[in-house]
């Protein structure tokens, strides 16, 4: 078992079974459909066109490559979309380092060669993004190889294991063939995904948002700089954009759609599910800097005659954000807001107690309350959530403390 660098293999002389040099390595291909890390074949440029040599026909692979068979047994190379060409697709390109949570540029690729019976097994193990790979490539053919090896051994490696690498492929069809799903990226915290996406070029951002799960995409999108949010949503097709916007918090979705040109936000709204559409378009009608513009319409409200048990049931089926769970609102006849119960009280009260017995008088404001007054209310009453009620005293939505924090940060 030994490590060999892609840059060493590229250009290496390839000998056939008789020991005659037949050509040089031009490319190295991985077929992700068959195996995610295994080298499918080397593309060898010979005097008689390009040929492919699979590793199981190889005796050794390093600075020179030795095949176990004759050139006549090497198949002709036909280009295919479904293979990953390490030089073209990886070398010098940017990738996402899922472990380090950033975008980096590939200086070299490390392969592991394992002899099995009479042939080789070649696997991609890591990409080199540090000085070692860069110096190896810059001095290739200039510095004698033994000096170079001694020099390189002194440089601490900066490599990313292959399983933490997400490739950036902008062509959707090719992405499917290469099985690129941004699984690693999607597992990161939405705020980290947002940071990474902000570092990418527009086409690559689009690729990520076309591919990852809608829910993850929605959460990440909420964390992205508003200007970039707009350009990402504009680049997606309307169906996909609507799917993602649906999953966003209605207030964040409304902010985003408010920043889009009217024509486009209209098209996206049209594609959305009726329920979400109604919530978001209500929010859109209010000014962004008012209580209504900041509120979310996803909250927990139960009748004041209900028991604590019912409230717990309502909590279990609630699909909105966690922040909104902090308070359970109580409604009386005509959906009027009559009380509120903090989550803590639900937790410490026996399930058979009627909610009206533990109710507190709710703090609320009108939809057109300016956001500065909203912040003042949070401060004065030490709120976690604030109810927004319409002219009939009905609960229209709630504002959560995290919205107030980001509102305050952005107004400075």
């Amino acid at each position, binding site marked *: 078992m030994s490590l060999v660098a892609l840059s060493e293999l590229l250009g290496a002389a390839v000998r056939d079974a008789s020991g005659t040099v037949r050509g040089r390595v031009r490319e190295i291909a991985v077929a992700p459909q068959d195996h995610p890390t295994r080298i499918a074949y080397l593309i060898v440029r010979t005097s008689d066109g390009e040929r492919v040599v699979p590793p199981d026909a190889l005796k050794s692979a390093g600075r020179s490559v030795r095949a176990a068979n004759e050139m006549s047994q090497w198949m002709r190379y036909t280009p295919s979309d479904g293979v990953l060409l390490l030089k073209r697709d990886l070398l010098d390109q940017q990738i996402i380092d899922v472990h380090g949570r950033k975008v980096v*540029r590939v200086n070299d690729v490390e392969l592991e060669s394992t002899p099995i019976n009479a042939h080789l097994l070649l696997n991609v193990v890591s990409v080199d993004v540090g000085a070692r790979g*860069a110096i190896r490539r810059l001095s290739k053919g200039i510095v004698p190889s033994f000096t170079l090896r001694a020099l390189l051994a002194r440089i601490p490696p900066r490599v990313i294991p292959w399983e933490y690498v997400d490739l950036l492929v902008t062509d959707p069809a090719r992405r499917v063939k290469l099985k690129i799903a941004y699984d690693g990226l999607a597992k990161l915290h939405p705020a980290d995904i947002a940071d990474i996406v902000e570092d990418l070029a527009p086409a690559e951002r689009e690729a990520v948002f076309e591919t990852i799960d809608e829910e993850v995409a929605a959460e990440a999108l909420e964390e992205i700089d508003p200007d*970039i949010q707009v350009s990402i949503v504009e680049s997606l097709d309307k169906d996909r954009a609507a799917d993602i916007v649906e999953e966003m918090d209605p207030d964040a979705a409304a902010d985003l759609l408010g920043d889009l040109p009217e024509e486009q936000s209209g098209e996206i709204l049209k594609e959305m599910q009726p329920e979400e559409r109604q919530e978001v378009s209500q929010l859109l009608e209010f000014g962004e800097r008012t209580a209504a513009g900041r509120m979310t319409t996803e909250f927990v409200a139960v009748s004041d005659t209900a028991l604590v048990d019912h409230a717990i049931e309502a909590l279990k089926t609630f699909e909105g954000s966690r922040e909104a769970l902090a308070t359970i609102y109580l409604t009386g006849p005509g959906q009027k807001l009559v009380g509120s119960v903090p989550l803590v009280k639900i937790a410490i009260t026996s399930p058979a107690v009627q909610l009206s017995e533990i109710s507190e008088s709710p703090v609320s404001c009108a939809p057109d309350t300016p956001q500065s007054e909203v912040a003042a209310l949070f401060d004065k009453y030490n709120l976690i959530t604030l109810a927004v009620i319409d002219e009939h005293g009905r609960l229209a939505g709630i504002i959560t403390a995290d919205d107030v924090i980001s509102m305050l940060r952005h107004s400075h």
Partner: protein
Amino acid sequence: MTFFKGWRTRLALVLAVVGPGFITANVDNDAGGIATYSVAGAQFGYTLLWTMIPITVALVIVQEMSARMGAVTGKGLSDLIREEFGLRATFVLMLALVVTNFGNIASEFAGVASSFELFGVSRYIVVPLAAAVVWAIVVHGTYGSIEKVFLSASAFYICYIVSGVLAHPDWKAAALSTVTRPESAGFRNYGYVSMIVGLAGTTIAPWMQFYLQASIVEKGVTVRQYKASRLDVVIGCLFAAIVAWFIVVACAATLHTVGKYNIVTADEAALALRPLAGEYAYLLFAAGLFNASLFAACILPISTAYAVCEGLGLESGLDKRFEEAPAFYWLYTALIVIGAGVVLVPRFPLFRIMVLSQVVNGILLPFVLIFVISLINDSELMGSHTNSRWYNVISWFTVGIMIALTIAMVIAQGRG
């Protein structure tokens, strides 16, 4: 009403993307540029003004391609060169860029020094101060705030226009020689031809392509806003050309008229202007030189740091903190400290360094321009935004002439 609204949104669109093109074109009129235009005016009067139009056209074409690439791909020029042409080509290119930009930076600080020496202030006070200001502006600012500082500095170039007016030129003669074909007799004069080469060489420089594309990307200009961005480039180039025109005219109307041909630098030009055009023209000329030098001293190190770090895959960007992008900020700091430092070393062969950097500049330019044209015609990269056929003809023509001129300049400089 709809007309008004349309006009207003259009203006807002333009203002949202204005900046990169305007700034880049103006920095082009740096200490070296002002010196060249002054010498051209002093030696040849109005007879070189005809070069302004073709040079401006060439500048617009070359800049437009970089801006378009930035908007379409969202990547910097050195990023693209790295991805398409590999590490080795990028590394050599970046090395050459550092060398030539270092020479330019030193000459900007020399410009700062000589402009203040005109007012009797020692360079040992001004240059360290200027270096500190340059460093702090960029390191402590964000992209938006820095752009505002730079845009204000661009406006300050009006100094030269006023100074040109104060020189009371013969407007009719100046205007006529701008638009008429030059007399062929002039081309037999070696000095005249080498001046044309100098003018072209000082106007189109490799760093501009890198800086413009990088700032378009950092500003987040996209294909949809590109039309407004193109306007930014064109207006910037026009304004820069007008400023250059006034510098030539100011020196032509005064120095050339009285036979003072033998100036070499911009501060000499300012001094010579004093008795001829008056105190105000002199002051404005000197203040303009200071502004231009300081402005370019701000931009060149940052542009170099951007290009090198992008190309070599190191973290870069003004929006990152020092700890996030150490190589970026260190390179930037070193260029400023050493660039300003050499101006303060007594008997330092600054002039030789500048000549060397001009030669490297000349060698680098053809490669950069050829890379730009081949990248912009790569349909995999640019989609439908590659050059059209006629645009390619014009740009190859422009690039061909630029290459021929720079080779001529390098050879001339090599001869000494």
